[in-house]
């Protein structure tokens, strides 16, 4: 199966929650993202999978206005992210991977801060903060400084900060990393009902199983290029997503050559 590259000349349809065209970025000698075009349908639960260093984070950063692309455009619900950034960011909730938080605030303060930064009303923020803390099982630690949180709790509080303004599009980079199974399934049910009510979620992950169970659409990225995109069933074509992924990405090293590992 060939990658379903959307036609770069075609303008983004009104149905696309996120539509990126020819995004490319290089860091010095290394080309991190090499012309990715992708349409994320509104109301979909969209997974982006790829090996380490495939360019997932770079692509999502460029699509959300955190990293200026060398080439290409990103459009969120018809708003160009790089031409009208403030407007586009109002539509998006972003959980970036590998960035710090203002961790000298308590968990409660951090979510409140994220809400107030977006110019939300004080009382609305207060009631949503309480609900988010309860839903993510953080009420007991709401007054603890984020710097003293565990990795999973930190992830959850960052997710809460991304949800507070009820965005139309959620872009979550590695949202389940270090999150315990109970919290992960809580988060999944929150995201499921969010999608059911018309929101769009984009998650990046390298846990294929999770993506296969959770998402309805998936894109496979490797080496800065888009290898396949479509509904999960289209992309995996009868086999498991993990097998399909290994086929597409290749590079599965054969176990020859490590014989000494069996000689202990």
């Amino acid at each position, binding site marked *: 199966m060939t990658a379903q590259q959307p036609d770069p000349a075609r303008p983004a349809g009104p149905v696309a929650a996120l539509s990126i065209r020819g995004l490319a970025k290089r860091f010095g000698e290394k080309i991190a993202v090499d012309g990715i075009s992708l349409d994320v349908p509104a109301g979909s639960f969209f997974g982006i999978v790829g090996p380490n260093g495939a360019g997932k984070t770079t692509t999502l950063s460029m699509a*959300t*206005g*955190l*990293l*200026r692309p060398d080439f290409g455009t990103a459009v969120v619900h018809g708003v160009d992210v790089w031409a009208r*950034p*403030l*407007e*586009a*960011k*109002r539509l*998006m909730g*972003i959980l*970036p991977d*590998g*960035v*710090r*938080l*203002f*961790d*000298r*605030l*308590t*968990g*409660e*303060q951090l979510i*409140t*801060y*994220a809400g*107030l*930064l*977006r*110019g939300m*009303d*004080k009382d609305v*923020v207060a009631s949503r903060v309480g609900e988010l*803390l309860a839903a993510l099982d953080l*009420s*007991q*630690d*709401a*007054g*603890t*400084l984020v*710097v*003293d949180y565990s990795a999973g709790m930190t992830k959850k509080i960052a997710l809460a*900060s*991304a949800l507070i303004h009820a965005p139309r599009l959620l872009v979550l980079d590695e949202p389940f990393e270090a999150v315990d199974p109970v919290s992960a399934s809580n988060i999944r049910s929150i995201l499921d009902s969010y999608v059911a009510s018309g929101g769009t979620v984009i998650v990046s992950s390298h846990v294929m199983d999770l993506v296969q169970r959770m998402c309805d659409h998936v894109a496979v990225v490797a080496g800065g290029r888009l290898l396949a995109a479509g509904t999960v069933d289209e992309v995996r074509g009868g086999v498991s997503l993990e097998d399909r992924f290994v086929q597409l990405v290749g590079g599965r090293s054969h176990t020859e050559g490590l014989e000494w590992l069996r000689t202990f």
Partner: protein
Amino acid sequence: MVAHLLRLKLTLLRNGLRRSPWQLVGMAFAGLYALSVVATLVVVLVLLRQAEHELVYTAVVLGGSVAVLGWGIIPVVASATDMTLDPARFTTFAVPMKQMLAGLALGGLIGIPGLATALVALSTVVTWSRGVLPALAALVGAALGVLTCIVLSKVVTTATVSLASSRRFKDVSAVAFMVPLVLLGPIVAGVGRGITASTGFLPDFARTLSWTPLGAPWSLAGDIAAGRPGEAALKLLLSAAVLAGLAWCWKLLLERALVTPPYSGSGKRKGGKLGLLGLLPAVPAGAVMARALTYWFRDPRYSGSLIVIPLLPVVLVFQGSQAGDFSTLAFLAPLSAFILAWSISADVSYDNTAFALHLASGVRGVDDRLGRALACLAFALPVVLVFAAGSAAFTGDWGPLPGQLGLSLGILFTGLGLSSVVSARYTVAVPLPGDSPFKKPPGNVGQTLAVQFAGLGVLLVLVLPEAALLIAQLVTGNPLFGWLNLAVGLLLGVGLFVAGVRLGGKWLDGRGPELLAQVTVNR
């Protein structure tokens, strides 16, 4: 294995430098500074060769004791030790303990403090080259002394590692360490006066110290040269025993540290307290201000510079009492205004990648700038007013107050405006979030210096009117210039403040992603 550990340390050092040429420049500056200090000490020690025995003995033993004490104390309070060869990183490698100890100890020598100590210690051999035996004793003493320094610092850091890794201790010790640092002038002056007042006492003190682990290794050569071989032998035994004891302690501590990773937990705390976020207006700029103010008190990198402020009058009053003339108090308010205003010029660098939240939320640049500047202003304004009025009250001379206020407020507002512009465009190398304020920051030292100096230059130019009016008042003695200065300082200052916030905001809107990319490099 020892050679492996040493090579690892060298490779780490080299790769660290390879990350950017500026790192090399920074290292070169640090090296030059250390070199000048070391060179001075070496020359002094070489010259001491001709000096009379008692003076040399006193100087070497006291100096050596200070070095040992420094290696013992500084790593704890500064919590900024070089952890490139952190034993915890070797837990999975099953390195034999003896070789690990030897490797880590020798590794401690590599690096500027270790090399400097070793070089200075070795030059005592020249000092005592008044005969074969004293020179030999000096060599043994220097080796023992330097090893004691290094092993002591390892013992201390290993023993306090679980304490030092608790965030609360780090925060408190980092801020507390500022106090003696700022009061260094008065302390040194006090000690200096004590020394000159009791020159007769020092040789006795050195003799006493030479019987303690601090001074024993440094006194071997002196005792031999003075014809006290018995004493020297005893002290050799003492210092060897101390070194062995320290090494044994280190081994025990290390064995324990390798199997008990530091735990830095803290109790659960329910929410309900929004602090300043609940008090200040619920608009973006208000939220930024509340967050920044919270950081001023909770983040040691900020509160470290905050604690300097109340100490400034102490230093200046002390200096005035020494000179019998309190005219330097005139600098108090302008200096505090400058320190506080300039402290937010690295605000985004201090945020590090947490700045991504501002960028992702689509905060307008003006709100970001205004919030940060107002947070600083909230306490800087009262501080400057109180300091200006306080120094006038202290000297009883109220005449210069309006001019003083004009200059100080001018510096404060202009500085805040300029800082708002600078931090919107340039990043500087600062300690990372959670690190000690004394830790050598990663990244571009050269650019940091360039930004700081250029910024200071611009600030000097911008406050020229106020400075000129102050000088005019001093020269003519006409109080009108003072009142004029107050008006100019306020009007021009506030004008530049507003302009700075707006320009900074505009730059931030345009270049937010680039700024985030710059701080990402140093994360």
